[in-house]
């Protein structure tokens, strides 16, 4: 029979063990510090002010990226105040009939939807050597959503573009600190008149959030994210490409390949437009430890204005490649999910993924270095330990 003294020992022991185990648990599982960015979940904080958030690759397991997991790119501060009731969009320049539209006016126009993979031109900049200045994005300044809103073409037809109208300029309501140039860029009239270029007011069924350009943004599908100007307030039809920092020297690529590290004059460069062919491995996670047997390798692949033709993986350093299965969900400007099941014995593995597109472009071993670190698309790689 248990004595009173033994009983007290047992109770104390239980309490101590319980409290120690509980302390140990909370110590072992002490939360990794995070930053509260309302509405943006589990994203990599490249910068809080201004807001630049990268989507971790493990989230790339759905065709459409949930909005709270959709990467955020800002060049400067988001507009402080945005009142949907007083917001206006003007269309002027080389047009016969300048227009001013309210959000209610836009809502009355026929809405068109485009599933688009939006990628920042600088996605992967952090991998270039020598390093180049700018947000050091790694893999996740890319996401996919269904964007909806009236076609830009409809508005331009209504405004009646003159024959002299060759480029279409977008100005957003970004708040510019110091003497930083305004974020203004232009696209050629042909792309502006494409039936899939939108004035988007919605993203995957809901009005745009502030981080994504509420109340309206341009959506230039298949092109670098910078073409899709957020918080859009002015559209101007021009007779030539807009002259400004974000057209030149910003967002330009060398006409000829250059030696990594070399400076290039803006006149020897051209504007970045469509996205490269590229695939990413979403799982297994780089550095993970996995049991031997069947391992699902999966990810995403996109090619801007082209279609993804195939995605292959290699586990022997690129000597041989195995085809993967592309997902059923597809749209002209959207990425494809892909998957492949491997059978792995214990050991160290390096898994490579490589996409090829309908234009014959193939993801290269090494991305083409350029002074601003744009369009990085080298073959993706993860290393895993099977044991």
């Amino acid at each position, binding site marked *: 029979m248990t004595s009173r003294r033994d009983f007290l020992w047992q109770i104390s022991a239980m309490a101590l063990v319980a409290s*120690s185990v509980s302390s140990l648990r909370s110590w072992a599982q002490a939360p990794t510090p995070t930053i509260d960015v*309302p509405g943006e979940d*589990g994203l990599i*904080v490249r910068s809080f002010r201004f807001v630049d958030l990268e989507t971790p690759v493990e989230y790339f397991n759905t065709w459409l990226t949930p909005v*709270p997991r959709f990467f955020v790119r800002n060049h400067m501060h988001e507009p402080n105040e945005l009142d949907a009731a007083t917001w206006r969009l003007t269309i002027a320049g080389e047009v016969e009939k300048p227009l001013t539209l309210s959000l209610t006016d836009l809502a009355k126009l026929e809405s068109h939807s485009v599933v688009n993979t939006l990628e920042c031109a600088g996605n992967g900049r952090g991998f270039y050597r020598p*390093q180049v200045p700018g947000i050091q994005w790694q893999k996740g300044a890319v996401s996919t959503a269904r964007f909806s809103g009236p076609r830009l073409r409809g508005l331009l037809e209504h405004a009646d573009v003159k024959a002299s109208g060759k480029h279409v300029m977008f100005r957003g309501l970004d708040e510019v600190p110091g*003497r930083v140039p305004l974020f203004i860029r232009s696209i050629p009239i042909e792309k502006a008149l494409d039936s899939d270029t939108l004035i988007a007011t919605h993203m995957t069924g809901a009005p745009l959030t502030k981080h994504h350009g509420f109340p309206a943004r341009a959506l230039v599908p298949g092109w670098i994210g910078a073409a899709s100007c957020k918080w859009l307030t002015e559209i101007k039809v021009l007779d030539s490409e807009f002259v400004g920092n974000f057209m030149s020297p910003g967002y330009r690529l060398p006409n000829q390949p250059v030696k990594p590290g070399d400076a290039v004059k803006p006149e020897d460069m051209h504007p970045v437009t469509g996205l490269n062919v590229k695939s990413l491995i979403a799982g297994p996670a780089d550095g993970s430890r996995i049991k031997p047997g069947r391992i699902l390798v999966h990810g995403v692949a996109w090619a801007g204005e082209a279609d993804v033709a195939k995605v292959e993986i290699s586990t022997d350093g690129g000597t041989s490649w195995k085809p993967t299965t592309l997902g059923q969900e597809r749209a002209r400007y959207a990425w494809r999910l892909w998957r492949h099941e491997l059978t792995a014995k214990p050991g160290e593995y390096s898994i490579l993924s490589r996409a090829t597109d309908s234009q014959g472009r193939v993801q290269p071993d090494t991305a083409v270095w350029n002074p601003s670190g744009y369009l990085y698309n080298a073959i993706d790689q993860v290393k895993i330990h099977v044991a």
Partner: protein
Amino acid sequence: MWRKENMWRQPPSAVRTGRTQRSVIWLAIAIGVGIAICPARSVGQSGVSKLTENLPAGTMQQKATTACTECHEARIILQQRLSKAAWTKEVDKMIKWGAVVDANDHDALVDYLSTNFGVDEPAYQPLRSAITATKKNPSK
């Protein structure tokens, strides 16, 4: 990891019984003392970190903070790994864009940035944003 999790979830009575109780108590006391003397973490119990970062210590810390973080936070600098030539170009661009840097401080500022954020420095480790919106319904 999940196996350990399951073990911790067992009721205390199932962890140890019988004659090993006293050694368990001493072990528990030792663990408790060990935890108590561990250095405090730099973040609060909630794990929420501060929104913006600071620039590193140095004679130019204050002047760099004034010149740069007027427009953007320090993280944008902390993640760069650039040569002295590239830092010079960046500083000159930022002065053109409104950063207030006394001409006498220009070279010291470039030195400060290229010393702390040179090409050979280890990579900056970014934090993540907290998960709140998709916790209940990940499809949203």
